[in-house]
């Protein structure tokens, strides 16, 4: 199952994407993505809506079948035929723009479902771990509440904790603050910042440029399904080389988001 071909040569890469292509019907959304993340690295994907950021994340989590290319997680090719996708997804957490908490379960059950059913933890162990995680984000008193009783910011933090409960090697964040009221964005971003400081390897699609500049080890600008430009945040935000990057950042600045 494990394929260690040429591209996988460096097992040091937490994530390596080679020549990834993806179309929806005739629309080519990803047109050859190459990307490499080492452990503890935080890479932010920026770019206009429709540039392919979300699709890229969904492909890495195998939620979308890919058309071409290969994806490696810690040297193992996860796009190889016959690979056990459930086992792969356990190692890769994803948090969605729309939280996607399970509305029929308490916060506690949301967090413990996968550890209990997938990792086969006992109820007591899973609960203990969930309470510890919820305590860290200050929501342990909401453990018995249902998601609809929580604010959007609280729901999104629970969604992050739900992913963390599986101890993923890699965390994907898909515009996690885009559906939030402005006053609720900060609490979610500060949790993500904490995770970055804790050494979590993350690939983050975001519209929060200030946050990206702050947190990213590297920023990739996506344009029409390609990584047009990538580099350290200072370079991308202060001295973008590509004209399209400049124009995108100009528009973002005019909108007051930088």
């Amino acid at each position, binding site marked *: 199952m494990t394929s260690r071909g040429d591209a996988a040569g460096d097992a040091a890469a937490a994530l390596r994407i080679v020549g990834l292509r993806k179309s929806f019907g005739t629309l080519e959304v990803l047109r050859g993505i190459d990307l490499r993340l080492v452990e503890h690295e935080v890479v932010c994907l920026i770019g206009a809506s429709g540039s392919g950021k979300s699709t890229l994340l969904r492909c890495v989590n195998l*939620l979308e079948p890919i058309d071409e290319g290969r994806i490696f997680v810690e040297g193992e090719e996860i796009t190889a035929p016959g690979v056990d996708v*459930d086992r792969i*997804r356990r190692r890769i*957490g994803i948090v*969605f723009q729309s939280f996607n908490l*399970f*509305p029929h379960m308490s916060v506690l059950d949301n967090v413990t479902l996968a550890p209990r*059913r*997938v990792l086969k933890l006992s109820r007591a162990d899973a609960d203990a771990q969930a309470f510890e995680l919820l305590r860290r984000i200050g929501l342990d008193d909401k453990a018995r509440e249902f998601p609809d009783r929580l604010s959007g910011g609280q729901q999104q933090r629970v969604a992050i904790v739900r992913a963390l409960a599986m101890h993923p090697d890699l965390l994907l964040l898909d515009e996690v603050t885009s559906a939030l009221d*402005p006053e609720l964005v900060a609490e979610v971003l500060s949790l993500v910042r904490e995770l970055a400081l804790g050494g979590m390897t993350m690939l983050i699609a975001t519209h929060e440029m200030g946050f990206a500049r702050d947190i990213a080890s590297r920023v990739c600008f996506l344009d029409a399904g390609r990584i047009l430009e990538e580099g350290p945040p200072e370079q991308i935000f202060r001295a973008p080389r590509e004209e399209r990057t400049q124009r995108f950042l100009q528009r973002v600045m005019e909108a007051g988001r930088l």
Partner: protein
Amino acid sequence: MTALGGLGPRDRGDVLEPPGRGRRSRRSGQGALRSTAIAFASTFVFFGVLAWVAVNSSGWPLVQQSFFNGALFAESLPDIAAAFWVNVQLFFIAEILILVLALVIAVLRSIPGPVLFPLRLLSTIYVDVFRALPGVLIIYILGFGIPGLNVEGVPTDPFFYAVIALTLIYSAYVSEVYRAGIDSVHPSQSAAARSLGLSQWQALRYVVLPQAIRRVIPPLLNDFIGLQKDTVLVSYIGVVEIFRQSQITEAAHFNYTPYLATALVFLVMTIPLARFTDWLVARDRRRAAANR
């Protein structure tokens, strides 16, 4: 980051709504009392006139004799009530089988993957066929046809075939109700479950089905009401249940009062269930509105 917190719609609502709502409710409180009184009075008058006209019309004694014979009613009721016990048993046994079989079919039809294609095809054909055929036809074919084969070991009890026929007829409908429920759960729920490493089956079992079933409880109850009434159809294959019993009594006295007794039994059984269903639907709608 922007800081426009103070301009949210909530703040506007807080300022404007309470006085308006308060005034409206006080006024509607008095109004409601008056409308109720008027409704009561007009209903009383309306039905009073209707009853007076009916009872004083020229054919009334004949109608009363044939349909509302008090003595015969009292005489036939115990037998009819006893026969109704057969319907109750039919209903409960069939209902449990239906809930299970229909769920299995709905789940089979919802799981993608080429391996399961034959099963999906089979369940699709089953649902199409059994929804297309009149129930009585299925009851006849099973109840008379199969015992008529005289094959060793095949049951001959009509009650057995009654249960099987009702289960097959209703599972086709109920599986569609379940399937509508499964389809109504947004794909993002399944994606969230799968992203955590849950298998397809686990995602269905723990995330999709619990939400789907909760949503379809009112339509399921509606189908229960239909089943409750359709239990009389098995009288055709010789199960002595409430309808057959009332036919027997009717034939003995040349009087339709036993049918009225049967009708009364169904009214008493079905209307509360129908009301309960309506109440559930209304409650769900209120909740959905409150969450929006």
